[in-house]
């Protein structure tokens, strides 16, 4: 029988016994807390209630971690519904920490692998409740046979998803805080809001993912140039292709927690775009290398390599879909496939593709800036001017004169964009959702607070 957690917002006092109860059960295999208590309105905004969400892994019916794991390190136990990470199969790519909106998988930096809530699989087998449930002193956490009805997943702070998390919430009886005696004046309140707004720590940062910036940028260059060379553009020196290819693969393996398990990335082609990316990119580099070094006359091989290269870029872009925050359309001017096409158009002198790609990228860039600006994020005009100048203006001027110089400028411009791309990536998390809900609630309350 599959099970689900229950959580009653009216009962939880944020006491943290569940977190300690989990630690008591699992500390031998636990580096970070598997369960976390998230507090809404810890600074007690008078117009908003204060409540807690005790969240761990919800052992989703359609688990994103399992689906996206390239190493096939996750399984779902049919008997209990538990989603299990098998650390011995994990290569530490951390992609599941992006894919899961509940922040359930935790990266154990010491072991270089992922750990997370096991649903206390063993205890369930012995007819016991999970440790957190058994040790919740106020019956806020519960455990029951899984049932899809009335799960009330529309709780503020609980990320919306299509994953069918196995948890049923009991919503707050009263959705406002108590009536207070003294409420600060709105202007005074507003002056403190910025200070107390919790800005959750970002899971994806440019600084943390620089190796991936270089990896994906090299791939776009290699794929674009390789195909351009086929279509009459400047030839690609075999040594440069192999050198850059090796550097890219090296960097992609470098950021793994367990590099010796990099080969496992190929084990989940069925549902993981990361697995597919690695397969396609390795094939592209392999086929391209074979063509350039050993079989320069086998044109079929070259076309195949080029096709696989562009499919690889498509796979790269699919990977980042879980973290793209551009709004609609969910396309980015720094996406790998677009960058590859753009470079192709410059090096192979394809005017229609060049015009089209340039127009689309410029539109996407400006649109995105507008989108973030409306969300109140800084515009960073000098960065934008560099990106636009190097990426679009200079190539447009140089295009007819020197494709190589134009391409170099375009690549540099795209690199700036790619850096911005990583800086903008963010995945849903309870902390983030709670911060958003607080901001929304505080904004709405202006006018209701005397």
């Amino acid at each position: 029988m599959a099970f689900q957690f229950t959580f009653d917002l009216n009962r939880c006092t944020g006491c943290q016994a569940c977190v300690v109860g989990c630690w008591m059960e699992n500390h031998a295999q636990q580096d970070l807390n598997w369960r976390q208590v998230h507090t809404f309105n810890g600074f007690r905004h008078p117009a908003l209630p204060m409540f807690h969400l005790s969240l761990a892994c919800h052992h989703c019916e359609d688990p994103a971690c399992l689906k996206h794991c390239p190493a096939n390190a996750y399984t779902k136990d049919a008997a209990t519904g538990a989603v299990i990470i098998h650390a011995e199969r994990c290569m530490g790519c951390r992609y599941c920490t992006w894919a899961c909106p509940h922040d359930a998988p935790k990266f154990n930096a010491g072991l270089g692998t992922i750990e997370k809530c096991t649903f206390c699989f063993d205890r369930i087998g012995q007819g016991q409740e999970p440790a957190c449930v058994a040790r919740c002193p106020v019956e806020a956490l519960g455990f029951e046979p899984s049932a899809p009805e009335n799960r009330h997943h529309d709780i503020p702070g609980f990320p919306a998803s299509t994953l069918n998390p196995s948890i049923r919430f009991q919503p707050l009886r009263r959705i406002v805080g108590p009536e207070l005696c003294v409420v600060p004046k709105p202007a005074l309140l507003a002056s403190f809001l910025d200070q107390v707004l919790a800005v959750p720590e970002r899971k994806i940062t440019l600084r943390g993912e620089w190796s991936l910036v270089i990896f994906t940028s090299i791939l776009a260059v290699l794929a674009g140039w390789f195909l351009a060379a086929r279509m009459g553009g400047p030839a690609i020196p075999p040594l440069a292709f192999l050198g850059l290819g090796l550097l890219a693969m090296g960097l992609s393996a470098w950021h793994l927690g367990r590099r010796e398990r990099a080969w496992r990335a190929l084990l989940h082609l069925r549902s993981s775009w990361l697995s597919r990316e690695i397969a396609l990119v390795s094939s592209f580099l392999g086929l391209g290398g074979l063509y350039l070094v050993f079989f320069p006359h086998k044109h079929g091989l070259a076309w195949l390599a080029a096709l696989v290269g562009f499919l690889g870029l498509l796979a790269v872009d699919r990977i980042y879909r879980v973290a793209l925050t551009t709004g609609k359309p969910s396309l980015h001017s720094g996406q790998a496939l677009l960058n590859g096409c753009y470079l192709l158009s410059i090096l192979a002198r394809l005017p229609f593709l060049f015009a089209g790609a340039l127009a689309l990228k410029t539109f996407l860039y400006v649109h995105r800036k507008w989108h973030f600006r409306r969300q109140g994020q800084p515009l960073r005009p000098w960065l934008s001017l560099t990106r636009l100048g190097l990426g679009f203006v200079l190539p447009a001027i140089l295009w007819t004169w020197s494709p190589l110089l134009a391409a170099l400028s375009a690549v540099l411009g795209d690199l700036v964009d790619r850096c911005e791309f990583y800086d903008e990536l963010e995945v849903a998390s309870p902390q983030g959702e709670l911060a958003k809900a607080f901001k929304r609630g505080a904004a709405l309350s202006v006018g209701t607070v005397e």
Partner: protein
Amino acid sequence: MTVHTTACPRNCYSTCSMRVTVEGGRVTAIDPHAGNLATPEGACLKGLSYLERVYHPDRILHPLRRVREGVFERISWNAALTLIAEKLQEAKAKHGPQSILYYSASGTKGVLNGCGAGFWRAFGGYTSTYGDLCWPAGLEATRLTLGDNVHNAPWDLANARLIVLWGKNAAETNLHQMRFVDQALAAGATCVAIDPRRTQTSERAQLLVQPKPGTDGALALGLAHLIIAAGQVDTDFILAHVLGFEAFAEYVKDWTPERTAATTGVPEAQLRCLAQLMGSTKPLTICAGFGMQRYTNAGQSMRAMLALLAITGNIGKPGAGWVYANLSTQIFGHIKDPIDFYPPEQPDGVARISISTARLGADMLAQQNPPLAFAWVERGNPLSQNPETHTVRAAFRRLDFRVVVDERLTDTAREADVILPSKSLFEQSDVIGAYWHAYLQLRQKLIEPPGEVKPETEIYWELGKRLGMDENTLSSILPEPDDVRVEQWLEAKLKPFAITLEQLREGPVLAPGTPEVAFADLQFPTPSGRIELVSEEAVARWKVAALPEFCEPVEGAGLGKYPLQFLTPNTKNGIHSQFLNLDVIRQFEPGPSLFLSPEDAAIRHLHNGDLARVFNDRGELRLPVRIDLSLRPDVVVAFNGYGTEHGGSVNLLSLGRETDMGYGAAFHDNRVDVERG
């Protein structure tokens, strides 16, 4: 692997039963014990954190001797006890036995705690304290009004239709009560919180009344005024069971909503709303906390609050009543609290009970004939938890010799000449009571003490022998140092009540005669046999008005030069100065903070996270600011329990003075100012 029943012995309402797993001589898990109907879902995070605490690397495992300030070296038990015996004999010879101060506090519950006083008596005499830091003013107010400190079973709260949590943040200090609050709310009850702070508990309330600290008595009188004016009193109940209603009604006539609002800072509309709720909703339970009865006017305030229940007939019924303290398990002594706290009217010449706990430092310094020369401290950390840290420290430093028995290097232990390691809750069996539920429980010995740790009874035994006491004398006051003897000793204590250790090994047992509903027979053991709104005993014993009249707290209501009231409550993360050092706890509360309202922060140009200096004439602390957007202005808050390693105790700023009744400590009567640190 074995699983055993035991209980958490901390000074805490909940006193949880626990099932503890022991594997290979080591505690490996702590789980709920369903046999305790008050805490069937298990201990809070502190109870679970014993897994770290008992094996914590900072635990003291051997006797230590001070080499110089802050530096200790390990010594053998033999050396430690010989040195202590020598110093005791020296003090006794020079000044007499009453130059020895025996100071014990509430760090651990247990019947065996009583052995300490017996030992010092056998030594020939000692000096000790009267009164208590915790709750005597409220106990005495309750005793004067109802005759005894008992209340309905904890789970009976689920039957209430109106719950008033008055100065009680149960979610942090009595977590398990929140289950019953929730059960009542789920059944349609209403909850009101009265607290200057918006707390986790007040989130369950529809109304949060935020009076100026120390004005709870005025609030109660103002509410009584409105209830009486609206004719919402229970006349039949009053006629049959209440003494002094007419005089009380006459007195509260002056407590008009206007006056009450001005005194308490509670808007009139809220007063009327709360009075309407209290006057019209039955049954009503008031759960009163401890914090507000640490003001100079505290006893009278609590009497006024009790009067609200008396005039509305909310006593002696399911779902109704006064949930303050339940002393049903105080069956082992001749007298119960609060009488137990009073100095004897006739000193017996052996025990000199002359030091007020509230004024510990000043009274220690002032003690003459003989002056104090030696102190023995167990289960307590007066340097962080008693008022006036500076004075307490000075008083300890003036002594010739100090012994502190403790589990870790507290601020008090740092002052010691010799530190003796103390047992954890799993290392000696004892029988413990409670003060919210009425279960007697066996705190079982489950593991061998680590290192050279010895339980206090064993320490006394060994020390007694070095002082020349013979085994017959010692065994008349202490169990012999042997697990079997300890259990026999406990068994003998339980025998008069027909309770066996075997029973307690299975689970908690309700103390004999515990009522489900207190005062259900409407018999009140007061002088008049009725609920006394007018108390002659209050006048005679405490020199206060016979009626629960209101007078401003000494430092309260803007009378002094400091503009802010300093609240120093407990947090869920500690029990006084215990637990706050553990990693398990510190991940949730890394250190102390100063909570400020937006108004008070803005005036002082302070932002969230800034360092602030909170100060008055007595002392100062530097703490990071945290903004609390719902805190009552003119109130600042810092949790108590932190000591020197976190920048100092909040009691650096408090003053040792007694409450109006009960010999409590009015150290919440404490005004301060705050500036940029």
